[in-house]
């Protein structure tokens, strides 16, 4: 049994963590926590950290003792610099809480890249953990809607940079912009996206702790994640009716199943495919031909099959990326955003010059 730590930082991280904890109950009911037990195979510890107490209060499926409030009036806004200070102030408190929970086999830290708290806490936290612990730590990072503004784009760019430098064992991307297809209003889009992320992670955790026909384990996962440019994403598809396994694998690699826009056959460097379902769907030929197709363009493909009676076929793919066109595009606009923000700041500074001009006549009266 694996010991797994999942941390959600900031509003986005908290909410996704809550979605994971809710889905772990195995029912979508609001009363799940009263009706069921979480069906984690592993020893899973979850921690939500936030500067904004309201975000923590909004959670309902994460135990109170698993919510850490690092007090700072009204959160940190979207200011990563303020966030970093707050983390610095609360570092001991947070580290103590985590370390009291013992040692882990793997940790995931979830955050949005563009906010204030999560995006500033996560790199620092990972850095801190990496120094004290020796288990792999992966960041699950949510990229902003592109229209959310220059400040968010700027934050996202710096956050990703900070993360790469934090010593994390991999960054798993989920892109709000890409997942916008979920539709509905922002709130329901958030919930839908959070749910997608939650299900993928839970599936992964379940798989890592399951008996598999073709071996994939945490070691393999680590191997996959260490490939490429340290950037990864996850694809998933669950058949809702009888469907050839080949088609399910394809779907899991298609935009419909992925969390981040990528052409797996073009950009992936390593991958892992986990197939789950009733034995009758597990046509080895089909699986092999699909996996071969992928491995011919991707270097290494790990595959695992989990037999679950009466389950429709489901496929999870983990892809590490060599290159990410989408990320480059993001950085392109982020640079624009950074320049824009810089100019604005200069403008504001020059306004202050204007203030100086005005202040010259402070205390004087006009004489006629």
């Amino acid at each position, binding site marked *: 049994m694996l010991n797994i730590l999942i941390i959600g930082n900031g509003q986005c991280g908290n909410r996704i963590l809550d979605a994971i904890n809710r889905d772990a109950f195995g029912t979508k009911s609001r009363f799940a*926590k009263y009706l069921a037990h979480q069906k984690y195979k592993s020893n899973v510890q979850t921690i939500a950290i936030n500067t904004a107490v309201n975000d923590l209060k909004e959670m309902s499926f994460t*135990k*109170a003792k698993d919510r850490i409030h690092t007090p700072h009036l009204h959160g940190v806004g979207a200011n990563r610099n303020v966030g970093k200070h707050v983390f610095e102030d609360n570092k001991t408190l947070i580290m103590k809480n985590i370390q009291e929970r013992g040692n882990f086999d793997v940790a995931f830290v979830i955050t949005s890249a563009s906010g204030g708290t999560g995006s500033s806490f996560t790199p620092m936290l990972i850095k801190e953990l990496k120094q004290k612990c020796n288990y792999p730590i992966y960041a699950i990072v949510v990229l902003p809607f592109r229209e959310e503004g220059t400040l968010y784009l700027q934050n996202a760019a710096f956050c990703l940079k900070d993360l790469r430098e934090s010593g994390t064992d991999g960054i798993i991307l989920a892109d709000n912009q890409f997942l916008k297809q979920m539709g509905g209003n922002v709130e329901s889009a958030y919930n839908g996206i959070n749910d997608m992320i939650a299900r993928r992670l839970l599936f992964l955790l379940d798989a890592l702790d399951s008996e598999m026909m073709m071996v994939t384990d945490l070691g393999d996962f680590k191997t996959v994640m260490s490939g490429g440019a340290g950037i990864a994403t996850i694809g998933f598809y669950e058949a809702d009716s009888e469907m050839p396994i080949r088609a399910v694998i394809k779907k899991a690699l298609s935009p419909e199943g992925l969390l981040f826009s990528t052409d797996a056959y073009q950009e992936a460097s390593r991958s892992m495919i986990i197939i789950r379902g009733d034995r009758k769907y597990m046509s080895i030929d089909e699986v092999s031909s699909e996996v071969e197709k992928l491995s011919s363009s991707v270097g290494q493909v790990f595959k695992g099959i989990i037999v679950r009676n009466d389950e429709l076929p489901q496929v999870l793919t983990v892809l590490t990326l060599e290159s990410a066109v989408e990320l480059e595009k993001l950085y392109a606009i982020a640079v624009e955003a950074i320049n824009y923000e810089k100019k604005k700041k200069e403008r504001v500074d020059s306004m202050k010059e204007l203030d100086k001009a005005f202040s010259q006549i402070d205390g004087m009266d006009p004489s006629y």
Partner: protein
Amino acid sequence: MKHFGKTLTFISLAVLLLLISAGSASGKILFNDTLLEGDGFQINNYVIDVAEVFSEHGAATIYVFEGESATPTHDKFVSVGSSFKFTVEGEDVEVTLISIHSGIALRAKLLITVTDGSFINSKTLGEVKGGHKNAVFPKTPVLEITKTVDADSIMVGDVINVKVSVTNSGDGDAEKVLFSDPTSAKFVLQQTLISPSGQTVIKKGETRLIYAYSLKATEPGTFVLNPTTAIYSNSIGDDLPQASSNTPTIIVEDSSKKANLDVTLVVDKYTVDRRGNLQGTIRIKNIGESSASAVTVNLAVPTGLKYSGGDSAIEIISGVPTIYLESFGVQQEKEISFNLKAMDEGTYTLSTQNSYRFSDGINPTSQVASSTSVTNAIYVKKGKYDHLLEQPVYVYLAPLLVIGAVAGWLFYRHRQYKF
């Protein structure tokens, strides 16, 4: 009268015309024979007298008398072959002088006819020797019987004196008078002082005491004495309507002194939950005039209620809560309480069977009286937690434990997730 006279005239005229047109007298022949001078012929209250016969003239004087009046209503000098008419009770009587016979005694032959003779009393029809002065007319005696009592409100055992007298207020003697005086039930005839023996005659205008006797009242109540009746005839033997006396009403009051126990039975509430308790009270009061003895009150407890104790005055005798009081004076009162437990749902009434003895001051032996007292309906409803209690312990304990556990769990979880 005038009018009546006119009518009569008219009728007579009409009849006359009728007779003329018919050519001869018609109707029933009452008499077609000779009458001696001085004799008469009676038709009910009328007497046709041949007053004087004039043989040489071939005529006769004929009088018609009505009743006892000595003055004739008709005084006719009739020639042989002639006739005259008069009216009796609406019918025409025609008298025709047929012939005159002379000899030692003078006689006249009369033909007397009547248009319809159905009204004629045969007892007063026929020849009257000596004529009108010897005729007997039917009279109507009227008997009035009066019954008097010397008291009309008495006590049981008291005696009243009854007197019955009769007065003949009619115009004739009452003959063959036969009295009858059935004694009223509820009374016993004590003594008879006067009573008629057989048939008697009550003369016109006579008043006579016919009965005198005394009666004893045997039981309380309001009673009407039977009437004394009389049947009688007039002098010619006609039966007259039965005469009846008045019927005095006698109120007979109870003279005995009784004990009268008023036993009331009440409970403190008439709607009770199953397993609930009721308090009952038996109130005994002697509202009579004599003290009671051997007072026994048996409390009948219906199934569904259970007697669960009471005052020391209540003893359980062969399963029945019983109160026994040796004696209970006039106006004495006693209140006895007891408790009941409602056992089963339903509607019940509680009752007591009461009995006691007393001496009434009349009868030498003591009297027994009994009564029953019943409460209003008592409703036993399902108790609040009855459905629980009806079940064995585990049946309600288990859900309670489950509810407790669930509540505990919910609270625990709520606390666990409340930030």
